[in-house]
């Protein structure tokens, strides 16, 4: 089922309507600045935290529907590895909460949206008592559409906002155009919507915009890390052992790379280099009482230099250097042996290759410290996608929108979850030996509309490949043991917009530096420019913020 654990890692945005670019954007993203992505969400300047935030939050009533086979630990998702028994599914929404009042929802969509009134939309609407008109928009150009729609005077009743589209002044739009849900959800009021009440408070806290609870979150586990995948089948066949330090990795990579055979050790590894070298992302309050930003730390440059060594040694596939083509294809073709992506790729690749290429075996490498010690993992934000309800919506509209969100947040093991993720039994999926499989109609109708509205506490379940679910949770737990929280963890911070653009040059600069198009001196120069053009001011601003709110760690 839906690996919620895999909800996006670093903030990213695929900008052109093409597969190649979308995947290139994934491959080229930067973990080192990830905290920038995290820090530009929120609303008016500042953040709401501590007691002030707690007052706004809904009460937390955990779900008792189905105990996970592997409980959450170290910030991991919960894992379900048993079979699906339709008869054993419970109902988390015994009474339909919707009253059938029409609700218009705009949401990003990847793939071809099904027709309005298709069997899936009808089926879920009927079960939830809602009447939703979907305005599914192409996920890759969602930002443009969102900007235009928010600036117009006709905003849909409910709008899904991913954090990577929350750039520039969008946070202002959230406070200006969307309502405070406090009157409907704060404290015990949420108990009317049991599945929303089961969303962990950390995730809800991310939904505070401009001092009010406005966003219904899709929770993500703190262990949403970028995963270094490797081709276990090829490693086993060739007898390679997993590298345990930065130097070991480089020398292993040199050994296995053979341009003649068109085999390269890896794709772009910039995403994990920060973990290996312990480069702390974003703003942090250090033990010495000073506030520092990620790019000012020596580890930042060390991580970049190591990544550059990989490029210089020619162990990175040339197409990755050119950011061309599809890294996934190179990995499944065995042209690269190590490849980084988010957690969802584990199941996606395994399932996709199961029939076509039975030898294919994907596994995740444990991250290591540069010198062979422990890696440094930093907790990621507990939510990255919100749904918002328009200011001025009628009470009935709001209640129907919340009913829809409540339905979408149904935990694993419920009829509602099954309906949202798989559709109607017999029409959209069939179950054989406890493994549900989508029909053709299911594949074309049940894609990702409802799942964007809200989500339950993070979990992983793949009834067809339970082993993958187990490995995913175990990897998260092993890596989660090394996890630290940054000072900005779990805070929905809005920086003053006048400094919003001082970080932007680094994204490209890093890419250019590791590929050998810029010199280290260029990066160092950019860092001092950054300091003088607002970095120091921003440091003072954060110092004040941490003094006032306390830090997240």
């Amino acid at each position, binding site marked *: 089922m839906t690996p919620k654990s895999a909800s996006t890692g670093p903030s990213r*945005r695929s*900008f*052109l309507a*093409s*597969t*190649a*670019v979308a995947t*290139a954007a994934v491959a*080229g993203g930067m973990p080192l600045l990830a905290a920038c992505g995290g820090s530009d969400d929120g609303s008016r300047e500042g953040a709401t935290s501590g007691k002030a935030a707690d007052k706004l939050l809904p009460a937390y009533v955990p779900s008792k529907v189905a105990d996970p086979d592997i409980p959450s630990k170290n910030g991991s998702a919960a894992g379900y590895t048993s079979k699906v028994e339709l008869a054993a599914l419970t109902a988390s929404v015994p009474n339909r909460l919707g009253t059938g009042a029409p609700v218009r929802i705009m949401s990003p969509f990847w793939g071809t949206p099904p027709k309005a009134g298709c069997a899936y939309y009808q089926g879920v609407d009927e079960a939830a008592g809602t009447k939703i008109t979907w305005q599914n928009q192409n996920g890759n150009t969602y*930002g*443009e559409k969102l*900007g235009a729609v*928010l*600036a*117009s*005077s006709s905003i849909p009743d409910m709008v899904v906002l991913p954090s990577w589209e929350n*750039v*520039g*002044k*969008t946070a*202002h*739009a959230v406070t*200006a*155009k969307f309502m405070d849900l406090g009157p409907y959800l704060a404290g015990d009021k949420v108990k009317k919507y049991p599945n929303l009440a089961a969303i962990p408070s950390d995730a809800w806290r991310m939904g505070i915009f401009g001092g009010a609870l406005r966003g219904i979150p899709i929770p993500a586990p703190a262990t949403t890390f970028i995963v270094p995948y490797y081709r276990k089948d090829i490693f086993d066949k060739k007898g390679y052992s997993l590298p345990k330090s930065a130097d070991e990795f480089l020398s292993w990579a040199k050994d296995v790379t053979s*341009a*003649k055979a*068109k085999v*390269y050790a890896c794709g772009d590894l910039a995403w994990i280099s920060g973990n290996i070298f312990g480069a702390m992302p974003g703003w942090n309050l250090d033990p010495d009482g000073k506030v520092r930003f990620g790019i000012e730390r020596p580890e930042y440059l060390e991580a970049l230099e190591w990544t550059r060594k990989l490029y210089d040694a*020619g162990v990175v*596939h*040339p*197409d990755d*250097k*050119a*950011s*061309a*083509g599809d890294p996934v294809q190179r990995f499944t073709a065995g*042209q690269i042996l190590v490849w980084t992506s988010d957690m969802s790729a584990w199941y996606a690749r395994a399932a996709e290759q199961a029939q076509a290429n039975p030898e294919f075996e994907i596994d995740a490498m444990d991250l290591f410290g540069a010198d062979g010690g422990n890696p440094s993992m930093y907790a990621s934000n507990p939510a990255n996608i919100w749904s918002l309800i328009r200011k001025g919506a009628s009470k009935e509209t709001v209640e129907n929108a919340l009913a829809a969100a409540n339905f979408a947040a149904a935990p694993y093991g419920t009829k509602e979850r099954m309906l949202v993720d798989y559709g109607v039994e017999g029409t959209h999926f069939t179950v054989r030996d406890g493994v549900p499989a989508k029909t053709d109609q299911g594949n074309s109708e049940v894609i990702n509309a409802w799942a964007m509205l809200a989500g339950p506490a993070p979990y992983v379940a793949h009834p067809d490949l339970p082993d993958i679910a187990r490995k995913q949770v175990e990897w998260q737990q092993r890596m989660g043991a090394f996890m630290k929280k940054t000072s900005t963890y779990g805070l929905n911070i809005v920086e003053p*917009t006048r400094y*919003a*653009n001082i970080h*932007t*040059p680094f994204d*490209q*600069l890093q*890419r*250019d530096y590791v*590929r050998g*198009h*810029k010199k280290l001196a260029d990066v160092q120069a950019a860092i001092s420019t950054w300091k003088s053009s607002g970095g120091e001011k921003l440091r003072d601003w954060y110092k004040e913020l941490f003094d006032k709110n306390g830090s997240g760690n």
Partner: protein
Amino acid sequence: MSLTAGSRAGGTRPPAAVEEPTAAVTTAARKTRAPRGARKAGKVPWRIRLRRDRALILMIFPVILLLLLFNYVPLLGNVVAFQDYDPYSSSNGIAAIFHSPWVGVEQFSRMFEDPLFWDATQNTLVLFVLQLVLFFPVPIVLALVINSVVRPRVRAVAQAIMYLPHFFSWVLVITVFQQILGGAGILAQTLEAHGWSGFDLMTDADLFKCLVTAQAVWKDAGWGIIVFLAALSAVSTDLYEAAAMDGAGRWRRMWHVTLPALRPVIALLLVLRVGDALSVGFEQYLLQRNAVGAGAAEVLDTYVWNMGIQNGDFSYAAAVGLAKGLIAVGLVLGANKFAHLLGEQGVYKK
């Protein structure tokens, strides 16, 4: 009526001038005629001109209306270049203009201080010159070759094939180039097998500008021949026949008949191309920026995209857009002047 004809004579040329003398006479006539200002200085009152030309004005009207509505009205939105515009500060984006603070030329000074803006401007201009020299003549040559092919079937097939790449998206063109010229491409593999390693044309920042020009030629040169073919089809066969009767060979006919016929079109397209120069190949550069670095591949359009649209900084995007427009107008005025020096009409008359 005679006035109309008279005022038109200077601006219009017969499609082809066969013999040099005729052309020379036309040019000379144009040079000696009264300066335009004097003619305009009100020999004909505007009322009479209005009555005379009202049909023409009515014909222009629909286009002007559409442009006013869809180009000029939203263009007013560019005032946000002088603001710190927050489109969400009021009930809708238009009202928000009145709620956003005015910041004068701050966006422009930000732009001038950003080294990346200057990189982008320089890259844009260099690429423009390269494309002008290396790309622009290719469709003309192709059109001449195709036009000289007599067999209709060969002609049709060759033409149809050459149009095709225009319909490939840039993603695909770059994928194909990568597969052939990239570090793991067909060429690199072949060289590797013969002991030459490290060939990778696609990430070479120094050769990037030539590479993108080659890509542009591959994709769009075939499409570019269409206008020239249309111009060539307007050349009367009689002119060729007359020239052939006078003993002009193949090359002389091309020189004295074909090229003069193409000259006005070439001049027009050249000027228009110059105006378009700053907007050429946005997607092409965006897709390859990571391969060679922003220093080599950032152009003004990708810069606007990244700084403005991508980061939601509408005011800054508007400011850079205005600057780009000014540069383009300057280039066009220059190119038009150049066309006049060559004795061509260009886009508009002096």
